[in-house]
């Protein structure tokens, strides 16, 4: 069991808002590998079941991680699903937590990847090692 301070969570929210929502990401979620939601920020237009989403996302990430090991990779640190209107980008922050971005066609994947790299660095700093 672990515990994150209110200050940490608020700082994470600020980072998600300033670095991801600001470039047009529809929804940014931080979950742990057990499927718990740690932070969830959206542009006010997303209306899906975030709890189930987190459980499935954690399961999905864990499954792909297990596949990586089967083919001799340490891990696939990035997953990406492209949809017609919404795409999902998963990345690993550290052993415990994942960052998930849901974004539309107006956001360039390449740029999002740059941004998430930056955000992950910041979150690691906040989270502490």
């Amino acid at each position, binding site marked *: 069991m672990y*515990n*994150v301070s209110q200050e940490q969570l608020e700082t994470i929210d600020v980072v998600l808002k300033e670095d991801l929502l600001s470039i047009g990401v529809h929804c940014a979620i931080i979950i*742990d590998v057990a499927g718990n*939601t740690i932070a969830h920020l959206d542009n006010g237009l997303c209306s899906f*079941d975030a*709890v*189930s989403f987190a*459980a499935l996302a954690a*399961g999905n990430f*864990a499954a792909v991680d297990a596949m990586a090991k089967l083919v001799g990779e340490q891990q696939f640190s990035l997953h990406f699903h492209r949809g017609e209107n919404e795409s999902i980008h998963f990345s690993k922050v550290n052993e415990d937590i994942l960052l998930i971005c849901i974004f539309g066609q107006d956001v360039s994947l390449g740029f999002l990847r740059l941004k998430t790299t930056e955000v992950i660095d910041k979150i690691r700093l906040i989270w502490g090692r």
Partner: protein
Amino acid sequence: MGFINVKKKEVQIKIVYYGPGRGGKTTNLDYINKKYKQRIKTEMVSIKTHGDRTLFFDFLPVDIGKIHGFDIKIQLYTVPGQVKYNATRKLVLKGVDGIVFVADLQKERRDSNLKSLEQMKENLLTHNKDVFKIPLVLQYNKIDLKGQGIPLLTVEEMEQDLNQELKVPFFVGSALAGDNVVETLKKIISMTLISFRKELQ
């Protein structure tokens, strides 16, 4: 691993139903979901195969209310019971806070119960968890088959097989009829919350 969100004042707890295939894990969740559907505001998610077998997991989030100002959010998972899915079972056990082991009372399933419990101990070890330390409840399921000509194990036999060393609380129940389903769940949540208690005060 349970998660305390200080900002939202909530505690997220992961409880996994584990046990041999066709033992009634999903049925336990189904019963809870149906019985308390007005109180459980979210929906149950199942990833299934043909023929209604669990492929990955079932997932049912239940918000039970507040303790010391913290919202207690329980997340119920089942593992797929079929032998071939052990990799998946390991994944679902990641971050588990409490376990309900659903064993099958049928005589012919005796071996499966033993194997499943043994494997669960190993799987927990891969996550650095000790079966003797994690909150755990046993459920001896399918008592509704009694008197239907199907050979069943006695409670003593079950205890001998599964609980001799563990010495954890157990319930004889029927997931299908709902006997002791709620009691099992209440017990495991209560045990898990006790181990969280210090964090909540």
